Every structure is written in C-alpha cells, then in structure tokens.
C-alpha cells in the first residue's frame, strides 16, 4: 500500500457497493476460475440486491461489507453444492470480517482480475468496458453512458470480453517472469489511461459518472503501485499523471460550461492531489529512459506548478512534447505540441507546427486549435471558418457551446 492519502481514494468510501462488487468479483473469480464468470456475476449481484431489499427495513449493518461477503459466501456454497462440488472452504466471510489481511489478499486478487480483463487478446474496445464491469462494478447502462456508446454495443463488447475470459486461465502475477509482467502491464496501463480519458472528456449531463471513471482509473493504478511486481516506474508515472489531472477537475467546469486550462481558477485545483502527483512523479524517475507516461506527467506537473497561465514554463513543456512526438508518432500529440510551439515562438510557428494530412480532419480540436492561431494572426474569416468546422464536429453540446465562444464577430 502506498499510504498516500488523497481525496480520490476517500471518495471511494461513498461507493462501497461498487468497490465491494469489484472486490467480491475478484475474490470469487480467483476461487472458481474465469470460466465461472457468469455465476460469479450472479452471486455478486444477488448479494447486493439482498442488501438493497432488506437494509431499508432492518437498517444498515455495523459492518456492511462483512454482511455482503457473508451473503456472497452462502450463495457461492449453494451454487457449489448444486453443481456437485463439495468444497466447503469458501472463506469469504473471513475477508469481509477483517479476520484475514484483507487489503493484501484482496488487492492481489483485484490485480489479477485487472490483468485478466486487460489480457493481450482483448483490444481496448473490449478491455475498457470489461474492466468497468468486473473490476469497477458498473452496469451495462452506466458503461454505455460513460463511454458514449449505445447500450447494445456496450453489452456486445462486454459479452465478447466475458466469452474470451472463460477460456483464459488465471493470471498469477507473482509467477510471471519479470519480462512478462512488463509486457502484460502495457495493455493494463493503456486501458487505465483510456478509462481515465473517458472521464476527462467534458459532458455536463453525465458529469458525475464520468468523474467516477477518473476515480476508478486512479484507484486501480494506485493498486498497481502497491504491488512489488507491478510498481514499475511507468506505473508510478501514470499514477502521477492521474493525480495531477484529477486535481484540475474542480476547475474544468463553471456553471456547466467547459473552462480552458488558460482561464481556469487555479485556486480550485486540489493541492493535496497535486502534491501526491508530484511525489509519485519523483518516485517514478529511474535509470531507464522516460516512458510516454513520464513525459505526459511531466507536462501536467509543469501546469500544476505554474501559479498563472503566463508563468507556465513553456520551453520545458515543449521539450517534453518534442520527445513525445518522436516516441508516439501520434498526430494528436503533434497537435498538442503545436500549442507549446505557439507559446514559445508565436502563432505563426504554432500554425506551421500543426500536423498536415487527413488523420485529424474529423477531430474537432484540430480545427479549433488552428482557429486560435488564425485568430491571433488577425485572419478572422479563416479563423471563423475553422471554428465552424470544429463546432460541426463537436462530440457533445457542452463542447459545442464552448466552441461558440471562439467565433469572432466580423466587422461589417
């Protein structure tokens, strides 16, 4: 365990059901194996449901988690008996009652479940919803809302993921050779990053559920930092990135409207998360070359350190982006780099640094970023044409409204 207290983790106390759902799924899957995933999901759902149907009358028990685990244990035993198995040592109560070193045991099982969901056979379009479902206790409807999918598509991806899961053996992290852990960590970190990003995209209508994604991604990442086999430098860097970005969440919206980093009230940033983030970043520096996560966290740290937008250390940020562009070959990274170029060398240089080609033609921020440079260069007509394209491509109303503000009134 990291021992770093932070508000994202404290917030989880409010989400007991979700957390216990993930933990019970992890433990039961560990016991019965991935092939029993449907049974496990039924048991977990039934346990929560019984609480939902009795606690309103009987009151909330002193040890709510223990109560849930006891019911799950009984249901698991029933099911084993019905399927002709005689094992009687389900032992779930011991976990819920705190008679076993809960955190260590459960954390191991949760990590195993995370590795299972993010198995290399799954692409991100499967691993993200599957992780949300099994490790984070989200319903199909909530997953669809959070990932901006329709429910049928979300359901399809989850069941595809579960079908693959049934064929996989359990992952023993401690039994994996060092190189294999590193290799398997890769898709896990990508999944967590996508999970986090899903929450970071602005949409005020379902804001709470999307912020939950950031909290869940951060929680799972902290879990990885707590295990000696998985606490790799890039994991610490990703934890740093999540903490630093989550710190800015309170300032990202004002009365339902998105606020650009430039105009955010930095007094609203969560200082505690920032210092946790900076600590993780410090710990992540090793002898090996920095990973993309290190560079992204480095950029977030520069923003976190600047008291005002004009104080931002743009040359440092540009240096990070220069490395990132080489490493990732991603046009979105090149686009973001152009912002740092513009801050260091002016809008003409920024415009010249915007990546060419068809890859970003459908990306609203490509046009919005160009519009900004064009406006700063005094080319209002071209700027408005670009912003109109951005508005047309905006993924939701909050973004659309936000972009409207960047239309310059033309002199008539």
């Amino acid at each position: 365990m990291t021992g770093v207290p932070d508000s994202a983790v404290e917030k989880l106390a409010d989400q007991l059901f979700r957390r216990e759902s993930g933990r019970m799924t992890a433990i039961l899957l560990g016991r019965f194996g991935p092939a029993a995933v449907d049974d496990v999901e039924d048991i977990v759902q039934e346990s929560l449901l019984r609480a939902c149907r009795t606690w309103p009358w009987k009151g909330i028990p002193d040890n709510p988690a223990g109560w849930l685990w006891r019911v799950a244990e009984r249901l698991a035993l029933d099911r084993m008996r019905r399927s002709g198995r005689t094992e009687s040592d389900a032992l779930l109560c011991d976990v819920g009652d705190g008679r076993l070193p809960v955190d260590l045991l459960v954390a191991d099982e949760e990590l195993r479940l995370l590795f299972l969901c993010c198995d290399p056979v799954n692409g991100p379009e499967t691993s993200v919803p599957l992780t949300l479902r099994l490790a984070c206790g989200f319903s199909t409807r909530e997953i669809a809302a959070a990932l901006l999918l329709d429910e049928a598509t979300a359901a399809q991806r989850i069941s595809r993921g579960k079908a693959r899961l049934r064929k996989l053996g359990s992952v023993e992290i401690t039994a994996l050779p060092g190189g294999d852990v590193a290799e398997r960590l890769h898709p896990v970190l990508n999944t967590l990053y996508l999970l986090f990003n899903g929450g970071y995209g602005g949409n005020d209508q379902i804001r709470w559920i999307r912020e939950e994604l950031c909290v869940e991604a951060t929680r799972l990442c902290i879990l990885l930092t707590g295990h000696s086999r998985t606490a790799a430098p890039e994991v610490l860097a990703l934890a740093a990135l999540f903490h630093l970005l989550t710190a800015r969440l309170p300032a990202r919206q004002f009365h339902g409207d998105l606020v650009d980093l430039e105009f955010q009230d930095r007094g609203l940033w969560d200082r505690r998360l920032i210092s946790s983030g900076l600590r993780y970043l410090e710990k992540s520096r090793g002898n090996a070359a920095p990973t993309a996560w290190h560079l992204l966290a480095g950029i977030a740290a520069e923003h976190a350190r600047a008291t005002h937008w004009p104080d931002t250390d743009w040359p440092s940020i540009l240096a990070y982006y220069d490395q990132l562009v080489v490493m990732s070959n991603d046009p979105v990274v090149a686009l973001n780099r152009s912002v740092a170029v513009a801050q260091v060398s002016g809008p003409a240089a920024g415009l010249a640094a915007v990546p060419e080609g068809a890859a970003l033609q459908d990306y609203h921020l490509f046009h919005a970023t160009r519009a900004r440079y064009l406006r700063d260069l005094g080319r209002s007509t071209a700027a408005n044409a670009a912003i109109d394209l951005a508005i047309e491509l905006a993924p939701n109303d909050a973004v659309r409204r936000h972009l409207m503000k960047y239309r310059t009134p033309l002199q008539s």
Partner: protein
Amino acid sequence: MGQFMLLLHDDAKDDAELSAAEMQDIIARYRTWSQKWRESGHLTGGEKLMDDPGRIIRSGAPGQGMIVSDGPYSETKDVIGGYFLIIADDYAAAEAIARGCPHAERGKPIEIRQIQTMD
C-alpha cells in the same frame, strides 16, 4: 389521528438490473426517509416480507377440508414486498408521508390502509 399501514406492492424482478451505485443510492434514500419519520414519531414499525409467493389455505370442496397452495401472488407479478406502520392525522397526511417513500418515488405502488380501532 389514526394508525395506517403502508403496503408496498413490489416485483423483485424490477430490481434485477439495478447497478451497484443505484442500489446504494436506494438504501441511502430509504435511510433518509425512515430516519425523518421515525424521529418525528410518525413511523412506528415495519417488516420486509420474504420474496417468495408464501402460502394460502382455503377450504376446498365440501368434505375435503382445507387446501394449502402457493400464495395468491405466484402467478402474478404483484407481491406485497413489505409494510410500514405509521401514525397520521388522516389519509391525506398518510399520503404525504408515503409519497416521499423511495418505493413510491421509484414508481412502485403503495397501498394505504387505515387500521380499524375499537371505538
């Protein structure tokens, strides 16, 4: 002033698809509601009934004695899932309390019956 019974008509199947977060939210809402009315002295009791059809006994054909069968609800979706006992001035006041119950807020029916007294 009278004593009223709130009979919560329910179908357990409605809840099968609830998410973890939704279930936790429902429990929290019940807690707020029952705490409020218990502290004010209006809510005096209640029990959850088992989610099974129960039993019913009735007299059979002449000479056959009593027949025991599954409860009247086994064929229908409508089950009395539980009840609350409350004290209220009249039906209108009882309705006001029932209206705020999470059960009603979730669109499930609550039957309100006044308990007959001696006088």
